[in-house]
């Protein structure tokens, strides 16, 4: 046990007397560096933290009150955004990532929550099959937050201790929840407030636990448990939080849409950390340069994305990151300015005696791990559908040679290989037609060198997506060294959807 400094009761007594010493985490980092951790830890009672990021795992429980005659709503919408209705008659949950059935992802649950907190009028629609006790089958009305019996923000996963950075090694622009990722490692997207991050500043979870009172959405909230995907040993702790939406402030709850990704909610969240012992103080003094995260390659369609670089929040916040010898821009998706405002506001509340600190009712688990989904149903792989008897060409072949091969082998796509059967290019019947039209003789001049390929153990839906993205109909299948193993075409994929011809049906996609 680390040297005790003060109890939460003592901190609350100082708050009541008005002589509590509160600093934001950024201020505390500076003081600890200038006057030493020991001195800073003795002088400062509380460190306030803050984060303001897009948190998709957010939403609100709403009770609409009963209509007369009443309805047991089995489906409901707010401004055309579906509300989860697997609950009692007029209870519902609006999730931040739900999206409008008329406007698409441009307007989602996050926007609904922002509009509710702003006091705006929303259109509520509800449907039912009708019962003896709830005879009504349809309802449509206009509601405001004041009309609701309860509106409670309940966010299953907020305040990620840190988040990964993202970059993109591919040759096309990606649109992700970490923003627009330009081709060829063109930039980096990241999220998180680093040295202001609530869960980084108490990374051993000594003061934050179930029941901890927090700043949530500009109002008061509470930690109600570990967040989903809570993974403390990897510095990826999360918390589940709740608070009365009616006392929150739209300045700290903002609906948002990530292009081609979806709707979400920016949540302002801050936690006060009482410096109860030296270990807590040491953690709270951790500067950006000692808080690391990994930049991953988001062009790899796997949860096991390759790490491109380990990087500190100091480097990320500078706005420039070096990747493979090139300096590129790093942009945050979360707002550092708003995170600072959260920490400052919480500091002010405590100084003014408006906010008392709490002792956790129970600790958060430290041994939780994040598991991946077991895939126990057979998923067809490229290796099962690819053709291995294929036509290939050598770079020295003439256009005439290749066209003869194509006709004989009934092939539309011809991989071009070197003497070791390694892929160097591809030609299609269309390329050959073009060569004839332009009177080109050499294969070299018309083949595509930057070939989009498939790997044997990739799943079919990933490969089908890739064909769609690049608007192509066939991919050479290569091993990790680039040796050509076969070819997979859209015609091969379409066999999957014809069970009468002996293929496999993918459920839900047919």
């Amino acid at each position, binding site marked *: 046990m680390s040297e005790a400094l003060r109890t939460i009761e003592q901190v609350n007594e100082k708050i009541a007397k008005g002589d509590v010493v509160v600093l934001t985490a950024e201020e505390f980092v500076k003081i600890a560096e200038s006057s030493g951790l020991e001195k800073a830890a003795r002088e400062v009672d509380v460190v306030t933290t803050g984060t*303001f990021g*897009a948190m998709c795992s957010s939403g609100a429980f709403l009770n609409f009150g009963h209509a007369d005659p009443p309805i047991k709503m089995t489906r409901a919408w707010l401004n055309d955004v579906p509300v989860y209705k697997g609950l009692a008659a007029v209870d519902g949950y609006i999730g931040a990532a739900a999206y409008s059935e008329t406007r698409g992802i*441009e307007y989602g649950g996050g926007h609904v929550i922002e509009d509710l907190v702003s006091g705006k009028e929303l259109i509520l629609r509800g449907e039912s099959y009708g019962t003896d006790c709830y005879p009504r089958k349809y309802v449509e009305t206009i509601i405001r937050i004041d009309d609701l019996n309860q509106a409670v923000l309940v966010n299953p996963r907020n305040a990620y201790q840190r988040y990964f950075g993202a970059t993109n090694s591919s040759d096309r622009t990606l*649109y992700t929840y970490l*923003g*627009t990722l*330009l081709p060829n490692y063109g*930039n*980096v*997207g990241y999220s998180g407030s680093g040295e202001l991050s609530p869960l980084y500043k108490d990374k051993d979870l000594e003061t934050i636990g179930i029941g901890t009172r927090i700043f949530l959405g500009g109002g008061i909230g509470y930690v109600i448990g570990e967040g989903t995907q809570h993974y403390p040993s990897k510095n990826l702790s999360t918390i589940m939080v709740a608070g009365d939406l009616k006392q929150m402030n739209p300045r700290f709850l*903002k609906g*948002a*849409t*990530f*292009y*081609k990704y979806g709707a*979400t909610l*920016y949540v302002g969240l801050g936690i006060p950390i009482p410096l109860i012992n030296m270990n807590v103080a040491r953690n709270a003094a951790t500067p950006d340069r000692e808080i690391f995260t990994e930049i991953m390659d988001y062009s790899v369609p796997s949860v096991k994305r390759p790490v491109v670089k380990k990087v500190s929040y100091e480097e990320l916040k500078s*706005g420039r990151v070096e990747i493979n010898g090139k300096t590129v*821009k*790093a*942009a*945050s*998706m*979360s*707002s*550092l*300015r*708003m995170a*600072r405002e959260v920490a400052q506001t919480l500091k002010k509340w405590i100084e003014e005696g408006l906010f008392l600190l709490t002792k956790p009712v129970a600790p958060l688990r430290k041994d939780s791990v994040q598991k991946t989904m077991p895939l126990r149903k057979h998923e067809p792989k490229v290796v099962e559908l690819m053709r291995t008897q294929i036509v290939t060409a050598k770079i020295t072949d003439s256009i005439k040679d290749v066209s003869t091969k194509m006709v004989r082998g009934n092939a539309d796509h011809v991989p071009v290989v070197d003497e070791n059967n390694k892929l160097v290019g591809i030609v299609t019947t269309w390329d050959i037609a073009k060569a004839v039209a332009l009177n080109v003789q050499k294969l070299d001049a018309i083949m595509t060198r930057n070939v989009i390929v498939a790997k044997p153990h990739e799943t079919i839906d990933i490969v089908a997506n890739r064909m769609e993205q690049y608007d192509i109909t066939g991919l050479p299948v290569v091993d990790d060294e680039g040796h050509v193993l076969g070819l997979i075409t859209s015609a091969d994929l379409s066999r999957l959807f014809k069970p009468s011809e002996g293929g496999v049906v993918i459920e839900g996609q047919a």
Partner: protein
Amino acid sequence: MKARLELKYSPAHVNKPILSKAILEARIPINILKASLTASEGIMTIEMDADRETIARVIEILKSNGVQVKEIPRYVEINTEKCIDCGACTGVCPTDALTLNSDKKLIVNEEKCILCGNCLKACPRGAVILYK
């Protein structure tokens, strides 16, 4: 003064060296910021730094050669009511027209904007207004 113009060429004019003509006649350098050509029209954004008279002369030359000319009074604006200063736009802005200052507040430098439009897609709050 700096001026930006959006030029629309009809297919009949796409093959003519109209811009070169304007440069030669008005005797000023013109910078092409953006150009796109489709089967039905050509659209170009140009910029020049000259006095009012010369700019008027360029516009006149272009118009008399059948090019539709639209002056671009502003380039980019941020709706500060909507903006949360995340800075997502700064990572895709090729000219640093959008940057965060030391207080991590978004700063717009319109002079640098080339109207590429990257920021429109990057902004999660729909806070960017581009005057194209």
